[in-house]
């Protein structure tokens, strides 16, 4: 770990992106291409009485109009198979697709949509997730018992995923407590809001279709397409041009099948490009709205002895990843604290809202925001400093996680101390300012990954993977790993990625998994090439391969750097002699940590957190007490990612996570009126702007994981977005003396809290 890793490398796709050379899905044009438009339901819950597309089909220039009647009746879904491509009999959210049109121009396609005759019988929408859990409540899915679901998912009516963690003896814990603190916190739904909206272009050649899509997960997208249109995987190629951000919103399968079906029916290439309203209302990966309640027993010395939490996640009209996210949420509701006795329950509740799913660190920021405010409230009750209270309970090596996993060397405590040090915890502040702390943890997601590397005859190399570059730079970073192993300059490594025909299966840019899993495959593939080069060089140099190293484009003797042979010469000679030097890696995924397993219900994907990253953020805010407007002046971040491989990339992820987290904290929330989004546009769904970005200080704690990614690294993409909102909330409370228990903490809500109201 010396020549390449740990140094600051600028990613290879940076220049084309900032100079406008990079091409995105919506930029692509094919000869004869048609334009797609969707007719959305526009109402949150209804029964379809009539759907007549004949007038739309008759409009000149319209080449295809499709409804559910025109595609196979196949239910699909990542966790619960609860949906169809088009609305079938009922409408469950406003963005539900009733019909799709392909026409010569976008205007004609829109006009055809308006010619479709629809009769909807409006039904009262299910919008209150607590009421939806009551016996006899109207069911969002009346046929829920007929749906298939992944093994282990516990469902009951509107709850499509019940999860719990049971540890120790909760009643005995409360009996031993000196103080019991309770709290309830509510978070609104928010959105991933990538700058690039969803776009899909499909073209058939014979029985094969190529789909260019804005997906973060090309293989799951292909899987959805093959399943819903009943095609073999070999008949579908999914390619992602450059992706303009995803933040989880482009995970899984979306509109690839609709567009492929249109292109097949129209016998022409068809392109779909979403507008911003569709991006808000008709996608299905919003960040869950939650209701979190806590009850925690502590001893006077600050020891937590009992921790009870109940989480309700509003997953909207369809489950998507909801049940799995609720499982993650229960782990987040425990937090990185020692809990001898714990009972956490999570419910994944259907409603007639836009479906929620895997937005960056799904459930993480909301649950951390709720838990860490609760933790501050406990410290206040005990009269303990908030840093001190956390230090007394935070997990360290040898401690047991919520589901019984045993922690190895971790940097939870050190990250907290770093954040506190960088913000100057405890220093005097001007009136109106306040400081807050929050800690958290997040997993790395072990999974299958493969890599193929070709050594070119000029000594450059090409790395081929199925990985997806969502903008985080993790695929770009794969070149650094290969360069380190092969002794080549990173600029000599090219990458082929996000094309299902080229690379091996990959679960995509989700779960902070790319470096963690694909990185190990790159190391394995590089090792094969490296071994071959070492043997060839050993012959030539008459040396033992163990005494040689690959450095700066040559293979050389470790003790006599002058004795060397150029890698390009070896590659050229091999090719001339009829041998191609390639490597292939598909190492097994790291095992999940041992956990309680059987005593917890509904645990399907994350019985424990593999190679968990630990972190803490600290924020300093200034609150305008008259208006409730909060300005965040400073955020300090301490992060343990196992080992940092490319500091410039990781700092970028942390800075981006902080800014994303500030939006979640202060301004990003979906407002619903009677089940329709009232702010599906960027004027009133307020992202943070460059002018809002505070001073940021970042420190990394080194604690390589034994069962981690390359060189002991852990997933980086999601953790940084988790604790910022919580730190800001605690800073607001410190500045004002009141807690804001509704996320986002808008000026109206802060002002109402200051006035003693719950807004």
């Amino acid at each position, binding site marked *: 770990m010396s020549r390449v890793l740990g140094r600051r490398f600028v990613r290879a796709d940076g220049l084309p992106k900032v100079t406008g050379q990079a091409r995105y899905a919506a930029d692509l044009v094919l000869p004869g291409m048609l334009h797609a438009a969707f007719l959305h339901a526009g109402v949150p819950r209804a029964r379809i009485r009539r759907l007549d597309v004949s007038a739309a089909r008759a409009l000149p220039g319209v080449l295809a109009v499709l409804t559910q009647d025109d595609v196979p009746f196949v239910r699909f879904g990542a966790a619960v198979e609860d949906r169809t491509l088009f609305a079938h009999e009922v409408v469950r959210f406003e963005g539900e697709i009733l019909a799709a049109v392909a026409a010569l121009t976008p205007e004609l396609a829109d006009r055809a949509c308006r010619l479709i005759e629809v009769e909807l019988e409006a039904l009262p929408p299910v919008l209150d997730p607590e009421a939806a859990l009551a016996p006899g409540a109207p069911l969002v899915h009346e046929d829920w018992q007929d749906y298939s679901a992944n093994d282990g998912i516990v469902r009951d009516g509107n709850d499509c995923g019940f999860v719990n963690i049971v540890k120790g003896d909760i009643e005995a814990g409360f009996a031993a407590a000196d103080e019991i603190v309770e709290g309830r916190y509510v978070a609104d739904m928010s959105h991933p809001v990538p700058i690039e909206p969803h776009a899909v272009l499909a073209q058939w050649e014979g029985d094969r279709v190529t789909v260019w899509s804005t997906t973060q997960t090309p293989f799951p997208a292909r899987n959805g397409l093959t399943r819903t249109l009943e095609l073999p995987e070999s008949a579908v190629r999914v390619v992602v041009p450059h992706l303009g951000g995803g933040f989880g919103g482009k995970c899984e399968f979306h509109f690839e099948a609709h567009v492929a079906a249109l292109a097949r029916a129209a016998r022409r290439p068809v392109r779909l490009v979403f507008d911003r309203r569709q991006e808000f209302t008709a996608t299905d990966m919003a960040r869950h709205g939650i209701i979190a309640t806590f009850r925690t027993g502590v001893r006077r010395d600050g020891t937590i002895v009992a921790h009870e939490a109940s989480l309700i996640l509003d997953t909207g009209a369809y489950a998507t990843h909801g049940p799995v996210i609720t499982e993650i949420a229960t782990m987040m509701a425990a937090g990185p604290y020692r809990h001898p006795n714990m009972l956490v329950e999570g419910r994944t509740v259907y409603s007639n809202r836009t479906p929620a799913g895997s937005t960056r660190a799904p459930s993480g920021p909301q649950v951390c925001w709720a838990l860490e405010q609760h933790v501050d409230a406990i410290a206040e009750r005990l009269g303990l400093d908030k840093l001190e209270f956390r230090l007394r309970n935070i997990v360290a090596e040898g401690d047991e996680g919520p589901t019984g996993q045993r922690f190895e060397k971790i940097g939870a405590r050190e990250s907290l101390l770093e954040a506190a040090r960088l913000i100057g915890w405890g220093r005097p502040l001007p009136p109106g300012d306040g400081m807050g702390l929050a800690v958290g943890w997040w997993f790395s997601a072990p999974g299958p990954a493969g890599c193929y590397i070709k050594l070119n005859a000029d000594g450059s190399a090409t790395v081929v993977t199925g990985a997806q570059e969502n903008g985080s730079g993790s695929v770009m970073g794969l070149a650094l790993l290969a360069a380190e192993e092969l002794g080549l300059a990173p600029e000599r490594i090219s990458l082929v990625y996000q094309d299902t025909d080229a690379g091996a299966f990959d679960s995509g840019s989700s779960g902070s998994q790319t470096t963690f899993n694909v990185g190990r495959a790159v190391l394995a593939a590089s090792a094969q090439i490296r071994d071959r080069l070492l043997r060839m060089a050993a012959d030539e140099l008459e040396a033992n391969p163990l005494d040689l190293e690959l450095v700066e484009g040559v293979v050389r003797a470790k003790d006599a750097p002058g004795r060397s042979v150029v890698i390009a010469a070896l590659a050229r000679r091999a090719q001339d002699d009829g041998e191609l030097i390639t490597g292939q890696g598909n190492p097994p995924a790291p095992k999940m940590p041992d956990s309680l397993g059987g005593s917890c219900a509904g645990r399907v994907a994350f019985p424990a957190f593999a190679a968990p990253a630990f972190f803490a953020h600290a924020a300093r805010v200034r609150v305008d007490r008259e208006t409730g407007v909060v300005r965040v002046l400073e955020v300090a971040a301490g992060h343990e990612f196992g080992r940092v491989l490319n500091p410039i990339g990781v700092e970028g992820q942390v800075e981006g996570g902080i800014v994303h987290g500030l939006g979640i904290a202060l301004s990003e929330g979906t407002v619903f009126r009677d089940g329709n989004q009232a702010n599906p546009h960027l004027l009133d769904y307020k992202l943070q702007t460059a002018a*809002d970005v505070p001073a940021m200080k970042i420190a990394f704690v080194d604690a390589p994981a034994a069962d981690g990614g390359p060189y002991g690294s852990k997933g980086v993409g999601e953790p940084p977005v988790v604790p910022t909102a919580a730190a800001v909330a605690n800073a607001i409370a410190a500045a004002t003396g009141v807690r804001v228990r509704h996320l986002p903490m808008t000026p109206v809500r802060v002002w109402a809290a200051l006035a003693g109201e719950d807004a």
Partner: protein
Amino acid sequence: MAVAVGRTYHAPASLDEAIALLAELGNDAGVVAGGTDLVVAARGGRRQLPTALVAIHRLSELATIEGSPFGGLALGALVTHADLERSDLVRRRWTALADAAALVGSPATRHVGTLGGNLCNASPAMESGAPLLVYDASVELRSASGTRGLPLADFLLGPARTALAPGELLTGVTVPPQPAGRVGSAYLRLDYRASMEIAVVGAAVLVALDADGRCTEARIALTAVAPTVVRAADAETALRGQLPTTERVAAAAARAAAAARPIDDVRATARYRTAMVPVIVRRAIEAALKRAEEEAA
């Protein structure tokens, strides 16, 4: 509906040509300058484009900022927010207008969006309206049958409603000389984030001070709390003729709420808006007073 069937586009080269076109096209005509409201609303499906688009960007005679000999100000309709934000004259003497121009949308919007467009769009949340109200500005409306002037307060009738008649073009804004004494003006907006905001509550204030520091004139206007930008007469009366002590300023600001008739919407509750009016007005009065006091030095 939004299909471009039978739609025409005109780009007159002179004001006379534009006026003649508007007379000819009548109710079908819609004027486009920067397009930051018209085009965005059409793209978003909120409003259709007019059947006949009359683009006035070539009428360079409407892009001028001029001081009048007696201390007034004449602004062409095509003056952009960025022009106002950068003009030395506006920044020095018509500070509230410069404050407001600098707050409009994004830099891109400010460079393309025009004063005339902002007024004709008649949003209650417009930035340029409240400052022009406290300057007692009038709009100049030209048509084939002549030119008329109308006080801005009479021009703005409600959300997206103005007194502009078919065939009329808003060609400019005239502002009379400021009152005697040391004059200061300011525009303040409540912002949820640090840029790219739209008004939830805004206030423009003009004060004139005599040698003793007494308020000889006080004018206050509010943004985004009523169907149009409005003057807050009660608050003005409370300040006029008074020494602007902290208590009097606060009391005057509190009376500004009487002019507010806010609504509940996605940006804020009516209660919040009502509560914010005195806060923002008080801060705007303080800012205007500070500028007036600096005039003396």
